[in-house]
């Protein structure tokens, strides 16, 4: 590992880091497209796991470039929690519930894809208009992060089942994480850990709720709006 601030002294290396972060951003967008287009719950889960893995790699790259030890810790936690544990929990819930494996969209998936295109183009357009703020930030990290976050919200909004909504939540969270990492070169450790704990807690609560609702009333989240007391 290089000493602190080595990246700033070596312009070639900084360029390279920017290029790598840009490339990872493109791959993140690709996994996001896969999540939006996934017709089966398993595929969406695998895609979000791959996305978290990419976030962890981005954290590792930034950590190596800036020599920030906190970033190494964050990359490690991201790898373990978001790329391995949470996807396997989701996987377990899908198997346990024995539900239909198809994603049930509110609007057709093709329409969701079209909306995703609008979001991507808009976020690039908007961040281009930020001017000086935009120039201070490495490459395309900001528009990619915004696009990831908003598309995650889109996935949450357009899916019927709680499981796929959770996938959307994780993707959205990944977007925020990527933006934070690339823009600030690493937030304070305590904030990052707090954010990750929030996600774990949300996943736990949602998992328990989904299983409980399922076992007591044999309904899914989408059916709850028709529930009458």
């Amino acid at each position, binding site marked *: 590992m290089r000493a602190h601030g080595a990246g700033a002294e070596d312009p070639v290396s900084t360029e390279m880091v920017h290029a790598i972060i840009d*490339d990872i951003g493109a791959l993140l967008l690709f996994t996001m497209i896969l999540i939006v*287009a996934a017709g089966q719950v398993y595929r969406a889960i695998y895609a979000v796991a791959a996305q978290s893995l990419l976030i962890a790699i981005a954290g590792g790259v930034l950590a190596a470039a800036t020599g920030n030890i906190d970033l190494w810790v964050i990359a490690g936690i991201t790898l373990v929690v978001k790329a391995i544990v949470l996807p396997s929990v989701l996987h377990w819930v899908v198997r346990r519930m024995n539900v239909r494996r198809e994603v049930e969209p509110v609007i057709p*998936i093709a329409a969701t894809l079209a909306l995703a*295109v609008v979001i991507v183009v808009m976020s690039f357009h908007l961040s281009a208009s930020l001017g000086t703020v935009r120039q201070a930030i490495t490459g395309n990290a900001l528009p990619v992060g915004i696009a990831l976050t908003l598309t995650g919200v889109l996935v949450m909004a357009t899916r019927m089942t709680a499981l796929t909504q959770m996938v959307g939540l994780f993707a959205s969270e990944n977007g925020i994480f990527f933006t934070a990492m690339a823009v600030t070169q690493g937030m304070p450790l305590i904030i990052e850990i707090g954010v990750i704990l929030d996600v774990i807690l949300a996943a736990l609560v949602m998992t328990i709720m989904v299983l409980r609702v399922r076992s007591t009333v044999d309904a899914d989240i989408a059916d709850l709006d028709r529930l009458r007391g």
Partner: protein
Amino acid sequence: MMSGEISVVIVLLDMALLVLIGPLVTGIIQKIKARLQCRQGAGVLQPYRDIRKLLRKGTVQADTASGFFRSIPVLVLAATVAAGALVPVMRAAPPVFPMGDAIMLLGLLALARFLTALGALDAGGAFGGMGASREMTIAPLVEPVLMMVVFSTALAAGTTELGALAAHRGTSWILSWRAADFLGFAAMLVLLPAETGRIPVDNPDTHLELTMLHEGMLLEHSGPGLGCMLLASHARQIVTLGLVSALFFPFGPTESAGAMGLLLGAGAFAVKILVLAGFLALVESSYAKLRLFRVPQYLGVGFVCALTALALRIL
């Protein structure tokens, strides 16, 4: 102009090589597929034998077909072979005289597709009409996206000529990839089965009415005409693969180098085509064919990827 003449010879050599090797690539894909399914499979030279057999047979033509029908196979083959002349195989530099660029290439492929559909409709068979209507449903979804992928790469080089594009990218391959290239390549991988008429969009091995797109349009052809159509579809496949390799993995001498450089370029091209053929065989063995109405959604993934690649380049 000495180098100019050499360059023309190389372009013609490239074209001939593409057409001659086309059936071999199909044979290799079928062999890999057979192996993956634990079958022995036919030899890799089987497509050549098929074409040779067809060329020796007589022709039977539908009564409803017009005189134009007979010339369809030749025209389709000619358009596809002409498209092959625009793909750099052994070179990574533009030819000395203007020949046409990637847009021309896609246009020629579209022309071949249009003529095929026209022939299918002309013969008046029910299957042919159905195959043509399906093909024409898929084509407008594939071709614009292919164009966008080409543009997303061409924007960086400032040219749409494939040889110049390849020369601009240089030979550092994946190390020189920018963010947009990853997304463009992803879009290309999604489109590749559609453009080569393979699973999950089309199934080249079936004559079942529910599944066929391209095969349905060939049903009315027979004898040498069918042979030409088959040769054209093999050539189309390798031209598409060659387009991918020219856009994303160019390799070869940048100037009219000696025989050694050309051999090296040809060898690298063979390796690239083999890898892409292996990818196609793998996809074909591990996925089921999509329902026709699910195909737009599948191609939508490619569309979104290509558009995002363009956005990364422009915005």
